[in-house]
C-alpha cells in the first residue's frame, strides 16, 4: 500500500444516486467535466485538423480539385468543382487557427487538465465552485456551434485571419464576409466567459482548497503551471473580450474604433489583440511544460532538477508575457524606440525558457528512464520546444524579423511551439493520466506506433517550413506560384503537404487507442506509474469526492529514488516513520468539525 492513510471503503459515495442527466450531462463533478472537455476538444481538434489538411491540399497541389470527391459536398461558393477559392482559403486559414487555438488547445490544457488535476493533486474533493465549473464547460460547445455555423451563412466564415486585423475585419466591404465575421466575434465573446469562469475556479481552488501540508512548494508542477495559466486566462481574456466587443460595434452599429475613415486606430486593435495574444501563447504552452515535468520526473524515477527554479521560471515567463506583445508588431508601424524595448524584453524570455529546458535535461541525467508512451511524448516535447524556442530568437531580433515577419518561418516557429510543444505535451498528459481518468491503461503498442509516425512526419512537415520562410515565402497566401521567386518552392510545399496528410491520418490510431482502451484496456490499479502525487492515492477512476479522508501532505511531489528508501518512490501523503502510529497532528477544530456534521 503506497499510502499510509487507508482509503477506506467509501467507494459507496459513487454517484448512482444522481440521475443520468446529472451524472453525465449536467454534472458538477470536476472529473466528469474534464471528460466532457476532453471529448469536445478532441472533436474540435479533429475539425481543425481537417481544415489544416484542406489548406495543405491547396498549397501542395494548387488549383487541383480536392481528392475523394470532396468538392461534391462543398458548395460552389467555397470550392467550385472541388477547387478551393481564395476567399474560402482565407476562411480555412482563419478557422483552422481559431479552432485549434480557442477550441482545441485551450480547452485541452485548462479545461481538461485544469479540471482533472487541480483538485486531485492538491487533495481537494472538488472545485471551489462546482456549478460555475459546469457552466464553464457548457459554454464551450455553444460557442463552438456558433463558430461552426458561420461556415453555413451567406458570405462564408470569417476570413480576416485569426488575428482579425482591423480594418479588414471591420466590414464586409473588404472581405465579402458579413455574418461570418460577426459570428466569429460573438462566438469568441461567449467563449471568454467559459475561460474566465474556469480560471476563477482554478485560482480559488488552488489558493484555498489545498490539503493540510500542501504548501506552495509542495504543489506538483502540473498544478503550478495550470495555476499560473489560470491567472493569465483571468487577466488576458477580458482584454480580448473588450477588444472583440469594440470590433463588433464597428461591424454592426457603425462605430469607428478601428476604422480609419472615422479616425479610428487600426493599430489599436493590434495592440489590444497582442496584449491578450502574447499571454495567450503562454496559456497554450505553460500547462504542457507542467505535464512534461511530471512525466519526465516520474518516468526517469528522479526528482525534477531544480524544482524551485522551475516554479520561478514559470512565474517569470508568465510575467514577461505581459510586456513583450509589441514584438508581433515590429513591422506594423511602431516607434523604433518602442521596438527596441520590446526586443529587449522579448529576448529575456529566452532565459526562463532555457532554465526549463536544461532542467528537463538535468532531470533525465542519471535517471532510470522508462520508455513508455508518455515519456516518448514528453521527451519529444523537449526536443521540439527547443526548436520552437530557438527559432523564436530569430524573430525576437527586430532587424531579422524585418525579413522573416509574416513568412513561413513564423508558421514553422508557431507550429513547433503549439504542435511540437503543446500538442505533444497534451499527448504526454493524456497517455500519462488516462489510467486515472478511465481506470485502464492505453495500449502501448498502438501508442508507440502513433508516437513514432507522428514524431517523424511532424518534423518532415514542419521543419522545411523554416526553409520556405528563409526563401521569403509569405504566410496566408493561396497560391505561392503567383510569384516567380517562389515557384521553385513548389516541390517542398508538396512534400510538406504529403507529410501533413500522414501526420493527420496517423491520429486515427490515437483515436482508436483512446476509444478501445476505455473498454478493453488493461486495468490500471490506483497507481500504475508508481507516482508520488496525491492523484494516485485515490482509486482509478476516483469516486465522487475523490478522497475518502483528507490526505495529509508530508513532502514534495518528486521524491523518487530517495537513497534512504527501498522503494524508488515516496508518496506525498505517506506518513514519516515516526508517525507510523498515526499522525501526531490533531485538528485544532475537531470539535467544531463534528458540530458541523
Amino acid at each position, binding site marked *: 500500500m503506497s499510502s499510509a492513510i487507508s482509503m477506506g471503503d467509501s467507494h459507496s459515495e459513487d454517484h448512482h444516486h444522481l440521475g443520468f442527466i446529472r451524472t453525465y450531462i449536467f454534472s458538477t463533478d470536476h472529473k466528469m467535466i474534464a471528460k466532457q472537455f476532453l471529448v469536445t476538444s478532441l472533436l474540435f481538434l479533429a475539425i481543425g485538423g481537417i481544415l489544416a489538411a484542406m489548406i495543405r491540399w491547396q498549397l501542395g497541389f494548387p488549383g487541383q480539385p480536392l481528392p475523394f470527391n470532396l468538392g461534391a459536398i462543398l458548395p460552389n461558393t467555397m470550392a467550385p468543382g472541388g477547387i478551393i477559392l481564395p476567399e474560402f482559403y482565407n476562411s480555412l486559414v482563419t478557422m483552422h487557427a481559431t479552432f485549434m487555438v480557442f477550441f482545441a488547445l485551450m480547452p485541452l490544457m485548462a479545461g481538461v487538465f485544469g479540471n482533472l488535476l487541480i483538485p486531485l493533486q492538491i487533495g481537494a474533493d472538488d472545485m471551489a*465552485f462546482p456549478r460555475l465549473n459546469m457552466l464553464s464547460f457548457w459554454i464551450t460547445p455553444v460557442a463552438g456551434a456558433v463558430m461552426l455555423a458561420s461556415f453555413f451563412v451567406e458570405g462564408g466564415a470569417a476570413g480576416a485571419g485569426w488575428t482579425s486585423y482591423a480594418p479588414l475585419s471591420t466590414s464586409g466591404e473588404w472581405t465579402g464576409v458579413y455574418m461570418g465575421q460577426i459570428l466569429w466575434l460573438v462566438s469568441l465573446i461567449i467563449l471568454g466567459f467559459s475561460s474566465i469562469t474556469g480560471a476563477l475556479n482554478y485560482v480559488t481552488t488552488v489558493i484555498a482548497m489545498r490539503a493540510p501540508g500542501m504548501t506552495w512548494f509542495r504543489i506538483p508542477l502540473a498544478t503550478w503551471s495550470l495555476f499560473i495559466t489560470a491567472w493569465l486566462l483571468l487577466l488576458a481574456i477580458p*482584454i480580448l473580450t473588450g477588444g472583440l466587443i469594440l470590433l463588433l460595434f464597428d461591424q454592426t452599429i457603425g*462605430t469607428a*474604433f478601428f476604422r480609419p475613415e472615422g479616425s479610428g486606430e487600426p493599430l489599436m486593435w493590434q495592440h*489590444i489583440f497582442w496584449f491578450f495574444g502574447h499571454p495567450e501563447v503562454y496559456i497554450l504552452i505553460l500547462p504542457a511544460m507542467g505535464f512534461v515535468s511530471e512525466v519526465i520526473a516520474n518516468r526517469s524515477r528522479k526528482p525534477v532538477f531544480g524544482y524551485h527554479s522551475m516554479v520561478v521560471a514559470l512565474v517569470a515567463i508568465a510575467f514577461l508575457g505581459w510586456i513583450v506583445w509589441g514584438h508581433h508588431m515590429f513591422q506594423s508601424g511602431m516607434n523604433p524606440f518602442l521596438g527596441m524595448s520590446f526586443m529587449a524584453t522579448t529576448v529575456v524570455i529566452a532565459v526562463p525558457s532555457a532554465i526549463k529546458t536544461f532542467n528537463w535535461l538535468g532531470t533525465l541525467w542519471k535517471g532510470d528512464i522508462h520508455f513508455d508512451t508518455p515519456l516518448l511524448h514528453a521527451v519529444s516535447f523537449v526536443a521540439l520546444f527547443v526548436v520552437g524556442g530557438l527559432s523564436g530568437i530569430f524573430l525576437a531580433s527586430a532587424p531579422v524579423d524585418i525579413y522573416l515577419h509574416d513568412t513561413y518561418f513564423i508558421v514553422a516557429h508557431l507550429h513547433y511551439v503549439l504542435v511540437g510543444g503543446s500538442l505533444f505535451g497534451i499527448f504526454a498528459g493524456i497517455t500519462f493520466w488516462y489510467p486515472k481518468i478511465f481506470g485502464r491503461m492505453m495500449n502501448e503498442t498502438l501508442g508507440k506506433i502513433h508516437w513514432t509516425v507522428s514524431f517523424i512526419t511532424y518534423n518532415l512537415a514542419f521543419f522545411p517550413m523554416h526553409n520556405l520562410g528563409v526563401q521569403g515565402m509569405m504566410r496566408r497566401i493561396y497560391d505561392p506560384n503567383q510569384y516567380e521567386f517562389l515557384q521553385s518552392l513548389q516541390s517542398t510545399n508538396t512534400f510538406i503537404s504529403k507529410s501533413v496528410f500522414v501526420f493527420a491520418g496517423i491520429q486515427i490510431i490515437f483515436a482508436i487507442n483512446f476509444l478501445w482502451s476505455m473498454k478493453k484496456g488493461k486495468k490500471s490499479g490506483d497507481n500504475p506509474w508508481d507516482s508520488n502525487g496525491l492523484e494516485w492515492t485515490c482509486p482509478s477512476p476516483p469516486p465522487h469526492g475523490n478522497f475518502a479522508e483528507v490526505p495529509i501532505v508530508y513532502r514534495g511531489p518528486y521524491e523518487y529514488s530517495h537513497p534512504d528508501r527501498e522503494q524508488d518512490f515516496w508518496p506525498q501523503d505517506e506518513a514519516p516513520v515516526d508517525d507510523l502510529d498515526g499522525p501526531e497532528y490533531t485538528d485544532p*477544530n475537531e470539535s467544531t468539525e463534528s458540530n458541523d456534521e
Partner: protein
Amino acid sequence: MTWMVPSTQTRTKARRVTMSDAGIATIDRTLEPGMGVFNKKLGMWVFLLSEVMFFTSLIGSYIILRYAHPDHFAPPGAILNVNLTAANTFLLICSSVSMVKAFAAIQQGDVKGLQYWLLATIVMGASFVGVQVYEYIGLGQEGFLPGLDDYAAHAGGPLYGATFYAMTGFHGAHVSLGVLALIFVYIRALRGEYTVADHEGVEVIGLYWHFVDLVWIILFTIVYLI
C-alpha cells in the same frame, strides 16, 4: 484524525473557522493554506481582477483615441450634462454607503437593518440606471450617437460618442446586473436566510457593488471632468 468530508460547503465553513487559530499548526502541516477568506469572497476578488482588466481595455482604448484625436472630443460640459451626472455619482456613492450599512447591520445580527439598507441600496442603484437612461435619451436626441454616420452633435466627433457609450454603457450594464443580484440577496434577507454567523452573500455582493462604484468614479472623472 477522522476528518470525513461530506461536501464542499460544510468543509469550506469548517476551514474558515480554522483560520482564526492557524498559528497552532506547524509550518509543515499548515491545515489551511488559503488567504484567510472564504471561497466565495476569494472568488469574487479574483473575478473583480478580471473585471479590472475588462475595463482597462475599454478605458485604455478611450485614452489612446482621445490622445490621438483630441479634435473628436468636446470640452467638459459642452455636450454632457456634468451637473446631472455629478448628482448621479453622488447617488451611487450613497448607495455604497448604504451597502456598508447593510453589511454592518447583519454583522450585528440586525436582520431588519439589513433589509432596510439593502432596499435603500437597490433603490439608489436602480435610480442611477434610470438617470443614465434619461441622460442617454436626451443625448440621443441631440445627435450624440456612437455611429460614424449617425453622429450629429454640435461638438466633438463620432469617436467621442462611441467611447462614451461603450464605457458608460458597460458600466451601466454592470450596475443593472448588480441591482438584480441585490434584489436576489434582498429576497433572501426577507426570508431571514442571513444571520450573524452566516452572511457570506451580503459580503460578496457588497464587494461587487463597491467595485462598480469605484469604476464609476474613475469613469466620471475621465469622461465628464477631464
